[in-house]
């Protein structure tokens, strides 16, 4: 009995010890913006960050040589201007003289040179090192073929001039310098603090905000950066809470703890008429791929039949998130998007094609498996498509779901007959989507290759005339989704958000980037504690 009392007392003590501190880190009069991140940011080192959670935070802390405007075109940022040599191989960036780090030091071209060489250093093991592979000797240095970093084609000519030598002409290079991986870094700080340089006590940045607090797995607090070279942001403080469960995030929004939240699919119908509701397109495509090495999908008629047997108009009815049904692959909101392309829903024709391929009403087909990674949305779509194939083609397809990493390995080593994948834009150009299915693409799991398609894509990448470029992409899309059909696109995703009416100026863009520099909170607000 005594022992029990002792243990109770002990447990009580432990429980009261380290009680969460009551500080909310906010002052009544401050303009605060609060939103959730879907996971703990894996890193705030922009040379290493590749996931959208980390990048979402970094983009509010840092800026690069160039930045996208609202139409997603690169514009001057830290670089006031740049010049290009006649052969297009040498870029000279002239930096603004008035840019300072949050500790008061001036930003120089040396910070860029250091950052780029660090990004490319094999010891850094950065996943995005290849973003700079257009730079002379960058790939050789990154892969260890040359050891001397000074051979890499980036050089601070003096404090405010950065010279970049490319290995060949790349007209899109000013877009590359908008990426977080190319942002400048401080040699002195990284060498002094090692891996811990991204902790709030050490992190020095140059964007509109600086990092004040990072409670791992829980909360990041950003405050306005008084050394920022642009206009001071209207917000005093930004709080990112790590909330992975979307239903929990929604509850937090409703109870006044968050100012912006992504709606879980199941909640969308109930919020459609809500005044805070915002829907926007999202440059993310969802498709089923066929493995052309496996019967029966070695036959193009079978692939066409399977694609035509699906009524994509049903998908938004199921997912209810304003998804855009897709028969072609370049998403809405991007250049060369063309909803006319692709195989329309036509069950009679689908059945006829299947018969012509030698499988009348599915007779003689080998067992077919549709694979996807475990996820409620994937599951719902797979079950729906399975039912449609059964109904419209008379074909029974088995479903197989796998845990994400197991699935990725399966795709790589033994691609299933039909598989699900998605693609989100890295940059808002059709090249990013269409390049995926060239025969040299590491992400083309279909085992399909078409020389004509490859040529169209490579020609389009360097084509300056928009109408010619459009024609090239139209032709390529026809090969991809009408004649060869290695994939059947299903839909383009949409963003469904709730944004507090107290928040002004929060742009919702199709790349799901969040820039809080211009966001305002109406003064009459009250932050609930």
């Amino acid at each position: 009995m005594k022992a029990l009392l002792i243990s109770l007392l002990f447990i009580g003590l432990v429980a009261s010890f380290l009680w969460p501190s009551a500080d909310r880190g906010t002052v009544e009069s401050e303009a605060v913006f609060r939103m959730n991140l879907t996971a703990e940011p894996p890193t705030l080192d922009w040379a290493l960050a590749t996931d959208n959670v980390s990048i979402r935070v970094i983009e509010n802390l840092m800026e690069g040589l160039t930045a996208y405007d609202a139409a997603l075109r690169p514009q001057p940022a830290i670089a006031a201007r740049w010049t290009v040599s006649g052969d297009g191989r040498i870029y000279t960036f002239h930096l603004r003289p008035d840019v300072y780090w949050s500790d008061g030091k001036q930003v120089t071209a040396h910070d860029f040179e250091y950052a780029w060489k660090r990004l490319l250093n094999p010891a850094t093991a950065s996943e995005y090192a290849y973003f700079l592979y257009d730079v002379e000797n960058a790939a050789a240095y990154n892969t260890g073929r040359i050891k001397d970093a000074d051979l890499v084609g980036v050089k601070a000519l003096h404090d405010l001039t950065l010279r970049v030598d490319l290995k060949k002409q790349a007209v899109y290079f000013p877009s590359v310098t908008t990426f977080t991986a190319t942002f400048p870094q401080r040699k002195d700080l990284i060498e002094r603090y090692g891996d811990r340089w991204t902790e709030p006590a050490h992190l020095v940045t140059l964007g509109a905000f600086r990092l004040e607090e990072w409670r791992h797995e829980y909360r990041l607090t950003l405050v306005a950066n008084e050394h920022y070279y642009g206009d001071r942001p209207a917000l005093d403080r930004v709080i990112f809470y790590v909330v992975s469960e979307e239903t929990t995030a929604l509850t937090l929004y409703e109870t006044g703890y968050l100012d912006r939240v992504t709606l879980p699919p199941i909640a969308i119908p109930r919020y459609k008429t809500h005044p805070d509701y915002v829907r926007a397109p999202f440059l993310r495509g969802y498709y089923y791929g066929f493995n052309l090495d496996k019967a029966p999908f070695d036959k193009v008629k079978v692939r066409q039949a399977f694609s035509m047997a699906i009524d994509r108009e049903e998908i938004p009815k199921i997912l209810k998130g304003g998804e855009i049904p897709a028969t072609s692959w370049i998403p809405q909101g991007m250049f060369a998007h063309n909803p006319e392309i692709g195989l329309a829903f036509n069950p009679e024709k689908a059945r006829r094609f299947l018969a012509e391929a030698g499988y009348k009403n599915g007779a003689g087909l080998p067992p077919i498996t549709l694979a996807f990674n475990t996820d409620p949305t994937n599951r719902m779509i797979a079950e729906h498509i399975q039912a449609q194939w059964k109904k419209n083609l008379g074909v029974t397809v088995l479903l197989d779901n796998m845990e994400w990493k197991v699935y990725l390995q399966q795709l790589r080593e033994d691609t299933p007959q039909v598989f699900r994948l998605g693609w989100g834009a890295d940059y808002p150009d059709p090249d990013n989507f269409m390049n995926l299915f060239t025969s040299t693409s590491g992400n083309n799991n279909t085992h399909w290759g078409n020389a004509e398609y490859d040529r169209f894509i490579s020609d389009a990448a360097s084509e300056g005339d928009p109408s010619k470029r459009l024609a090239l992409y139209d032709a390529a899309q026809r090969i991809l989704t009408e004649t060869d059909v290695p994939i059947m696109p299903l839909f383009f995703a949409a963003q469904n958000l709730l944004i507090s009416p107290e928040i002004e100026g929060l742009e919702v863009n199709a790349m799901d980037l969040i820039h809080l520099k211009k966001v305002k909170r109406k003064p009459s607000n009250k932050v609930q504690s």
Partner: protein
Amino acid sequence: MIQPLFWPRFRQDRLAVASLLLIAALLLIAIFGDVIAPYAHDLQNTDNNLAAPNAQHWMGTDALGRDLFSRLIYGTRISMAVSLLTGVSALLLGTCYGAVSGYAGGRIDNAMMRGVDVLYAIPDLLLIILITVLIGRGVSGVFLALSLVGWITVARLIRGEVLRLKENAYVEAARAFGVKDVRILLKHILPNTFGVLIVTLTFRIPSAILAESTLSFIGLGLTPPAASWGTLANEGWKALKFYPHLIFFPGLAIFMTMLAFNFLGDGLRDALDPKQNKVS
């Protein structure tokens, strides 16, 4: 061995009897699900999805417009099969291990129990996740993972029983007469653990149902079209505020079944051996 007074005693426990009837009914539903269910479990109607309970669909429909009542009935089969199978296999594995360890005694016992200690020190959930990811693919992975975790408790329990029974006079006598060890174990010791085994089984089954629903929550549950109650409840809990019927009915099914098995276990235990009142 079942005591002669078992049935009269058990009959007095009305909760346990009701539980037994409920479980019997569930088994019937599991077996004759196709006949009972008003709709096919995978019949979709996207124009009538997320409907609240009504005359056509007693429990409403899900996001694909499938009849929830029918899905629940089909789910009974899967949930019952998975939990019964894992219960039985954990029991078999645990009994063999525990019996050998307890009967052998001495160094072998010590070594075998240290092995159990090690497995015991690995978090259950991690073990389950690793196994399901490793084996993957639907029912077999979930089933194997849950059995592999469940047997440890059983092994400890049975070992204790065997240690106790080993000291009985009739075992000593049998040994003195030169009866083989295997025969002693099978004929004289294990039958006496029958009561404990039955009770353990009735408690293993609900924990398997619970563990399976947790797996579904994590997203490592069964492969469609197999929709266990756990899968259904997991599809529903997010909709708690918007479409409560999606969580209410599967949740109720899990809850009632767990309750029935637990009460049945209590009743069996009391009836088999009123003094032996341990919760397992």
